């Protein structure tokens, strides 16, 4: 069920990535100030944006779980947050590399954008031990949903707070009218965002499909009265 449409989605992701990477390296102009180093922008910013959007999506799925009381929404929320955390790790590492090349430091503590992103990441890093700490599956799902909603609401608030604060270091690419990017760079950036969003969706579907297979297998074992095999992760919800 969850694997439906996974193949075309995967192909679309690969094609879109090939297009966006070609555009990044062969079409996008070299930025006057940072030079070739600015190419990290097309990787780092989409990773960060897609991960933040993924956290919000996880919160929306959690709302649906609490409203409809269907376990699959909890699984959606869990997987959305899980993949977003991986993207956030990528965003943090690539951002750090960019900072080192651009500013000469791996990390700058007085930069609100960086610190706020780290706070969001650390907040979501606590999601796993939080889930893991609760034994009862139903309570676990409910509490995790409440966490996902609260943290998901924190993400846009955090973004607004950073926007309102003054920054002298971190580039504000969308601060000025017209986005602050020339047309060619904006096109490449949008392609990168689309390809990253496609990758996120593919991975979410892939993970859900694997979880569904795991759930079906468990059901089969139960039906056959077979030993359930090695215990699987307690934190990850199963999809039936």
């Amino acid at each position: 069920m969850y694997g439906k449409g996974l193949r075309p989605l995967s192909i679309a992701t690969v094609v879109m990535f090939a297009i966006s990477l070609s555009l990044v390296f062969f079409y996008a102009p070299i930025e006057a100030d940072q030079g070739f180093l600015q190419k990290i922008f097309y990787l780092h910013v989409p990773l960060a944006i897609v991960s933040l959007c993924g956290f919000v999506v996880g919160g929306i799925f959690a709302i649906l779980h609490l409203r409809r009381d269907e376990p699959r929404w909890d699984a959606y929320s869990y997987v959305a947050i899980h993949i977003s955390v991986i993207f956030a790790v990528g965003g943090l590492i690539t951002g750090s590399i960019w900072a080192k090349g651009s500013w000469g430091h791996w990390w700058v503590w007085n930069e609100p954008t960086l610190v706020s992103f780290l706070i969001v990441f650390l907040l979501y890093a606590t999601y796993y031990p939080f889930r893991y700490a609760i034994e009862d599956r139903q309570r676990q799902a409910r509490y995790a949903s409440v966490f996902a909603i609260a943290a998901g609401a924190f993400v846009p608030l955090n973004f607004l707070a950073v926007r309102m604060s003054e920054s002298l270091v971190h580039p504000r690419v969308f601060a000025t009218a017209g986005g602050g990017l020339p047309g060619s760079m904006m096109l490449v950036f949008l392609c990168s965002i689309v390809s990253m969003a496609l990758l996120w969706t593919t991975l979410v579907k892939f993970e859900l499909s694997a979880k569904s297979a795991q759930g079906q297998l468990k059901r089969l074992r139960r039906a056959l009265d077979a030993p359930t095999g090695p215990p699987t992760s307690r934190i990850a919800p199963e999809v039936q």
Partner: protein
Amino acid sequence: MTALFGWIVAAPDIPNDVGGKYVAGAYIVFVVLLLIYVAIMGMKLARIERGLREVAELAEARKDEAAVAETARAEVKS
């Protein structure tokens, strides 16, 4: 194919300065992260496949047992 090759050859080289090194590093990190994820998912899928094989073998064994029992019952009746 020739056009694509020509396009790649005509494209500017990755500058061999500090910027190029960091850009390569960032993109490699991204690819490595993806590969780690795919490897973990691959292991997970292998485990599921193993489980499915066990369940299928168990189902086959049950089916054979049932067939043997049915034959024995038929023999007793006759």
